[in-house]
């Protein structure tokens, strides 16, 4: 019997560097012995946890989920999960293009929370305009991936967002 391969990649608030992978495959295949996770950024670089010597991360088949600290910054990436047999032969493969924005989203929420406790901030042109620029950059990153499948544009938008987040003294 075969599986219908599938997985999800998500994040939890407070841990923007981490990606939580969950195997959502249906069916079963007794030949499967392990999985691999390969993550590639917009420049074609392999993204792995510090100290990993290979271009991929091993995901033990006994674990339905695995959490990996892969992200030093917000990134748009291709994620490929492979299901392998005991001999290392790839039996199933699934690749997704996705975008992780939690560093910048966390900061955006902080800005909104600040505004909710001090409504006058919205009258500060510098604060408000850059808050909207941050929002637009975050949405552009999402739209680039989900409407256009464009990893380069998505990463460019995330870079714009990062420039705002990294310079609060100038922009907020």
């Amino acid at each position, binding site marked *: 019997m075969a599986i219908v391969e599938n997985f999800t990649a998500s994040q939890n608030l407070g841990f923007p560097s981490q990606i939580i992978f969950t195997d959502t495959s249906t069916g079963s295949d007794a030949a499967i012995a392990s999985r691999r996770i390969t993550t590639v950024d917009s420049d074609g670089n392999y993204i792995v946890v510090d100290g990993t010597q290979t271009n991929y991360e091993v995901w033990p088949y006994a674990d339905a989920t695995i959490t990996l600290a892969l992200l030093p910054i917000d990134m748009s990436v291709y994620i490929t999960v492979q299901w392998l047999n005991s001999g290392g032969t790839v039996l199933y493969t699934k690749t997704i293009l996705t975008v992780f924005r939690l560093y910048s*989203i966390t900061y955006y*929420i902080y800005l*909104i929370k600040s505004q*909710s*406790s001090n409504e006058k901030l919205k009258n500060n042109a510098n604060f*408000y305009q850059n808050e*909207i620029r941050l929002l637009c950059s975050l949405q552009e990153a999402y739209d680039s991936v989900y409407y256009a499948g464009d990893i380069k544009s998505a990463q460019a938008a995330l870079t714009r967002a990062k420039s705002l987040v990294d310079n609060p003294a100038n922009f907020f």
Partner: protein
Amino acid sequence: MPLTTSQQISIGALCSVYTSNELASGKRTGGVMDTGLPVQIYAVNQGLKWLYEYDPTNSDLVPIGNYLISICRQQFRAESVLALNNGGTVAPIVPGGSSVNDLDFIVSATSIIETGESSITFDGTNGNPDFRGLNVNFARGASVMYTTPDPDGGVYYGWNKVTGLFQLLGPSSAAGVGERFRIMPDTTGGSSGSSTGFEPTTILLSADGTYTLPEGYLIWKISILPTAADTVKIGTTVGGDDIMFDKLMTTGVYGTNGVTTDVYAESADKIIYFTGFTAQATINIYLLPI
């Protein structure tokens, strides 16, 4: 019952659209509006949405959600569309009457209207009293203020009894430290203060629904703007027509749709029943105090 975060997000999404439409139309449903409000609502709503998606039990959802609702112009319209108020029944704001007190203070960094501020909203949010539905008189220093612009170029004030927006107007009108202010809600008369004249209560119905006429008021006129050629009747009982017999509505027109009437709520609230709507209609109800 307090709104849930999910409801707040839905209301915010609709209010962003409605305020954008209002801005684009050039017409205002009540008072002035910050032209940046639609974007502001959208921005705050998106922040609340993200926080809710990532952590639906986060404690910051409450202050952010409350702030979102506080800036949501046309909140009640959104709630009606979302059927958050029992399918079209809208209870209008009942004036506070004997429980409403004057605000008498000296302007400072922590007073009700702080030094340098030029407006405040008295709608029950942010710890402010709710003066909506009331006339408001205003004294500043030793002078009674007027709502009409000073022909000599002095200060005056603005009051919108529908939204609760109170404004200090005129040149250099912002509150100055040490000034004595007295804001006097008035349930018996005095300056109307509204810059938009006789303002109706507006409800939206897409099906049979009700309106609660508050005690102490009469309905002078009901105007209906339908989106379908419905045959509508209005009465004080379920399916009743004692206010208006079956009338075939003309789509998209106020003028021939509606009725001038004297329906009184002398000693208790009175429910008005609308029967016959099959598509969304905007209903303006013009009230007068008895």
